[in-house]
């Protein structure tokens, strides 16, 4: 009757491997079609584009951890880029103050959603128009100028290893440590898993959701600034597609909409996969109007694969 826990072999978890598998499923054919992909400069070019998407995906991941959904992240990232291109350049103090204010608003919205028990979909959808409106006020026409340091940060070169690869790995590691390993991260995920029980044990659900939305705001700011550093000029509609990309990235990375089941490393891989997938379609000279549809098809294929794995697990 006595089995020691250590002697049990854990079966290889196919589902947690899925983000890695899907990344390679895109990367390998891409390297065959365009061998330059795996070179130093190829890596820099492709992964650089992915960094803002990675941050946006992590913002979405923070919100999904709280069993909510953020439909405003795309317009929020655009707003941050606009603030960075205008205020941050002309009067840095005001710029940083505005960005800090945005994060605060995000946290307050999280608290409000829990306090009034409103659907986050409705709130963030409304909020997306607010963000978009402010961005248009700040920058009516595309333009603005990225601060010097930001542009040089994004074009920083490292010997041997492409710098964006190092950034992405560092981001994945830090968020993994925070969400999955740290004591605070565990209690935040606990709120996503069983909010009622956490409340009974004396945790404040409002505070937890505020923290998670605050994290989302922080990641959103990072996303907007890195995007600005890449493009060097801003536009009020520059990142609208990030909303759906970020949701897709989280789900592709093994996260689920409810129950606080998320994986930061998976989400980072998912975001990169999506970035590469769109470049891959360009390499294949697929017309841009077909690309979005094909991206959707890739997503559906991966999600069905996940379902197959889950059924297999259940049968065992």
């Amino acid at each position: 009757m006595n089995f020691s826990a250590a002697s049990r072999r854990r079966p290889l978890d196919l589902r947690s491997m899925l983000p890695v598998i899907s990344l390679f499923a895109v990367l390998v054919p891409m390297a065959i079609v365009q061998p330059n992909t795996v070179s130093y400069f190829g890596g820099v070019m492709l992964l650089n584009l992915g960094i803002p998407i990675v941050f946006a995906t992590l913002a979405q991941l923070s919100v999904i951890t709280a069993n909510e959904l953020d439909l405003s992240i795309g317009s929020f990232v655009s707003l941050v880029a606009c603030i960075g291109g205008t205020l941050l350049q002309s009067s840095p103090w005001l710029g940083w103050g505005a960005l800090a204010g945005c994060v605060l608003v995000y946290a307050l919205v999280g608290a409000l959603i829990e306090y009034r028990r409103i659907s986050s979909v409705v709130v963030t959808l409304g909020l997306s128009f607010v963000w978009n409106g402010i961005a248009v006020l700040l920058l009516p026409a595309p333009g603005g100028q990225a601060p010097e340091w930001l542009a040089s940060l994004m074009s920083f070169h490292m010997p041997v290893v492409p710098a964006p690869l190092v950034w992405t790995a560092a981001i994945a590691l830090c968020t993994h440590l925070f969400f999955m390993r740290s004591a605070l991260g565990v209690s935040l995920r606990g709120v996503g898993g069983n909010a009622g029980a956490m409340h009974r044990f004396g945790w404040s659900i409002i505070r937890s959701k505020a923290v998670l939305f605050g994290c989302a705001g922080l990641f959103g700011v990072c996303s907007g600034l890195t995007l600005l550093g890449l493009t060097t000029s801003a536009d009020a509609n520059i990142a609208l597609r990030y909303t759906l990309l970020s949701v897709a990235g989280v789900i592709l990375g093994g996260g689920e909409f409810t129950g606080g089941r998320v994986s930061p490393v998976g989400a980072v891989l998912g975001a990169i996969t999506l970035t590469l997938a769109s470049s891959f379609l360009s390499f294949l000279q697929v017309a841009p109007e077909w690309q979005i549809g094909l991206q959707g098809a890739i997503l559906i294929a991966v999600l069905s694969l996940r379902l197959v794995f889950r059924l297999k697990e259940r049968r065992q």
Partner: protein
Amino acid sequence: MNQMESVASGESRAGFAVSESVPLIALTRIDVTFGVVRALKQADFAFRTGECVAIAGHNGAGKSTLMSVLSGARRATAGWVEAGDKRFERGYDADTARALGVRCVFQELSLCPNLTIEENMRAVHPQLKGFGWRKRARAIIETQLDAIFPGHRLSGKDLVGALSLSQQQMVEIARCFARVDTPVKLVILDEPTSSLDKYTAEQLLTFVRKSAAEGITTVLITHMLNEMLRCADRVMVMRDGGVIATLPVEGLTKDAIIRAMGQFIEGDVTLRERAAPGATAQDAYRWTVGPRQQTTIDAPRGSIVGFAGLAGQGQTDVLNAIYASARGRHSRDRVAYVAGDRRSDGIFPDWTIAQNFDIRSLYDRTRGSWLKAASLRELFDTWARRLDIRGAAAGANILSLSGGNQQKVLFGRALASDADLILMDDPMRGVDIGTKLEIYRLLQDEAARGRTFIWYTTENDELFYCDKTYVFRSGRVTRELSASECTEEALLAASFEEPVR
């Protein structure tokens, strides 16, 4: 097995010097109201150090509400709680309860399924933080699991969502008894054995007696009267939101407890003679299910077939497989299912009581294209009366009912349907003894009318109502017992038999 039982019953009750004078925690004139419903009326009780108090009472008597005040999950509307020399008006909050050493295993499990066992420790103990908290949490919970359930086969790194219901219950119980910094003084166990099998339930009761001897007070809420008599020092009886009697366990009988609860049974429930279940092949259901189609289940029409064995040995899987084949495209069987894990499989938590009841009627063959509100309402009222569903109106949310009453709604849903075949997955969890007896009677009447029941239960007493019993082990049937062979010993022996491969 016998050795295990003798350890439990032979445990000395007077192991710890129970101080009669100063109570550990005293509840005085506690009132709790939800809107217009008075869940608790002037409830008084004093818990002493190192005793085991069992709480008896039918569903909705206020047991769970009283415990939520004691555990700090809910503030009382009036009254106070005294602990040591401190007095808390209208009770205290969860942090104070934790500091006082009060812990609670709730009926609805309060584990986070997306976290591992060790991470779940942190939900209850926020003081587990800083460098190496994981290691400490794992050491504490694994030690505690070893102490209560030797041979549990769980590791701190296991994801809770991947565990079976009974394993989750074990984790929940162990987490409750685990000591991080403040000593544990009082542990509330709300229906702790409801999803445990007999073997693990036995381990738990043994541990409760042992920890009472070490000075830990245990409050045991259960509908199993023999567990109360085995384990408790005193039995608190609740009815209609008040504590109406406190009975010392010496010389106490089951009948005395039932009488005090206000439920009278006219004699014993006798097994009624039924028309002999159809013996010919076309009158019987037959399924071949399980891993590699190796399990064959035969159920003559109009019979009650029991599934027994330790909890989580594949009984539910077989039930699900039977359900799937009965609902299959070419099947002409009409089937209904009573779920055991009502939280995840049974109820629609956002719906009203009546909606939860009505949903099965969508499958009724006689139903037209439109639902008939009036007849549904009438059907609900009939069954609500028959099963004595009380505590909230038909239009109230299902969660406003107590756990046992929710289960009654699920029962009503299946029995009121047009199904010939009713599958039950340990359906009696949290149902009080009076209702249980009523349901046993209903089952026999319905079986006599030709309905067939497949009944998985973890309570061996219930198998005596079955015409035959399949005993499961590791996903296979190890024994098939007829009604006359179905004794406690035979069941236990078969439960531990390894299936022949």
